[in-house]
């Protein structure tokens, strides 16, 4: 099933003007979101940008004092039963009892969703199959790898067939293979069920899987766009210099060689038109009195685009 064909007119979830403060510190400011069936939307931002606050508000873990929650077009209270029934949440820390087996954990989670007896047991087996862990079902969770635990946690969150899956930094602590497995599983589930997915992340490679990104910085939405559109903001070649001299001085000297120049920590990034990078590098050596320690040429990443947009580093 194509995700595009699953998109419907009524959003599965809409959040309108959510704000939140811890004491005097504003951590989320007038955040709004609409999410439709089959969509994967990413909340992209560094730590402290407000991503986890959004998820905590959505899950009802912290009280909402302003804003609206809408489910299927209808306004509901925060943490309303109707909302919680449609929602599966995978938090940063897995919501599993590491002393119990995989099946015991999932049966408990099924019961928490009102799925008991044969119906609950069947759902558990179905979800174990969906996350490809049927043969590990009787093992104690504490003995499994981080990647497997994450997949079990996703199975837990999907036992009640929610319309929306919310994931808070799902790849945190996963190795590359587990990361790929996780996203293969998520995309399969989305394609098979039309599940809408909201994922909070600071990883550019994770954001690439999203159809739409909401870029957050300092609790505010800076932009809402596709990964391609975000990358296009810094289209071209990116030459990165690691320098021993004053980075600001280097930036000033090479600024005329490209479209824009930025100092990022100890490095200087020069953005050039697409394909111009190889020709620009020799000229850099000509204008600098001291050769850079290292020169790298690459296409801009989402992280570069994020920096260009917000002035903040991801991660």
């Amino acid at each position: 099933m194509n995700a595009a064909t699953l998109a419907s007119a009524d959003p599965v979830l809409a959040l309108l003007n959510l704000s939140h403060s811890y004491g005097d510190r504003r951590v989320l400011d007038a955040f709004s979101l609409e999410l439709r069936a089959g969509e994967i939307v990413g909340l992209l931002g560094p730590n402290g940008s407000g991503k986890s606050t959004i998820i905590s508000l959505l899950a009802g873990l912290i009280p909402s004092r302003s804003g609206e929650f809408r489910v299927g077009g209808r306004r509901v209270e925060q943490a309303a039963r109707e909302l919680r029934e449609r929602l599966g949440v995978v938090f940063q820390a897995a919501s599993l009892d590491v002393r119990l087996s995989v099946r015991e954990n999932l049966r408990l989670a099924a019961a928490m969703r009102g799925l008991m007896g044969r119906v609950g047991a069947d759902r558990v087996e179905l979800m174990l199959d969906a996350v490809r862990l049927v043969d590990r079902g009787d093992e104690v969770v504490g003995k499994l790898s981080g990647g497997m635990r994450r997949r079990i946690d996703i199975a837990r969150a999907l036992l009640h067939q929610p319309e929306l899956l919310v994931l808070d930094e799902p790849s945190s602590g996963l190795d590359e293979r587990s990361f790929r497995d996780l996203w293969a599983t998520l995309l399969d589930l989305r394609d098979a069920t039309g599940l809408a997915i909201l994922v909070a992340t600071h990883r550019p490679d994770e954001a690439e899987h999203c159809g739409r990104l909401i870029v957050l910085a300092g609790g505010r939405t800076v932009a809402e766009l596709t990964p391609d559109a975000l990358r296009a903001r810094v289209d071209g070649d990116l030459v990165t210099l690691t320098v021993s001299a004053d980075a600001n001085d280097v930036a000033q000297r090479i600024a005329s060689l490209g479209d824009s120049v930025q100092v990022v920590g100890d490095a200087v990034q020069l953005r050039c038109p697409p394909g111009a990078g190889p020709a620009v590098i020799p000229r850099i050596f000509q204008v600098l009195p001291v050769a850079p320690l290292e020169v790298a040429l690459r296409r801009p990443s989402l992280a570069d685009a994020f920096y260009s947009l917000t002035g903040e580093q991801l991660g």
Partner: protein
Amino acid sequence: MTPPLATRSMSASPSRSAANLGLLFAMWHRELLRLRREPARWIGIAAQPLLFWLILGSGFAPSFQLSGAPQVTYTGFFFPGTLVMVVLFTAIFATITVIEDRTSGFLQGVLVAPGARGAMVLGKVLGITTTVAIQSALFLALLPLAGLQFGQVVWLALVPGVVLTSVMLASIGMLMAWRLPTSQSYHAIMSVVLLPMWVVSGALFPPGGGTLEVIMMLNPLAHSVNVVRGAMLPELREGLWTELGVLLALAMVALGLATWACQRAGGRPA
């Protein structure tokens, strides 16, 4: 047969009562699963009061005489208090897991379930009470060693007395664990509040009048000890049913407070 993976319509949602019952069952069942996984831990929790009973019982026995009931021995007098200690220790160690669950992330998964917080609290309290019931049954097997007789026990008072004590203490434990940020702070409160509560409950010594007797009357655990002791010792049965009524009221108040507290804070220390 379960339908294949598919987004469901809202008509397939469990009813409110099914969601509450499911959450209650899950919380209760988890306590039993953990008991089965870690039997040694729970036996250890019950063994500590047993050692207390053996050591203190044999130490104080020669010098103990209860006015008005000279035939009651100290081991017999102290046995009901030790049973209340078993309940206390079990409730403490079982409710401290609320803090561990918050730290580990398990609690967040519980809080997003559609059932009411009250069902969560009741399920946890009933799970602890089931554990207490098993431990109490094992401990009561030692009744003859205390010079007490099974035939003289008023089981209709003892069983609800132990259950209500467990409900009360588990609720107090939940209330504290919900609000406290770390297990260290819980241990501190336990040392300063819960253990002294047991010491001045009449478990160790009878009320001797004066200020201490007033403190004992105000101490919820004293009513537990009075019920359990009255049910076991025919000589100290006066006011048993009144005490059971007071204990029932205290247990319900504690359960209500725990439910109220868990509904207010969102699973994080306030």
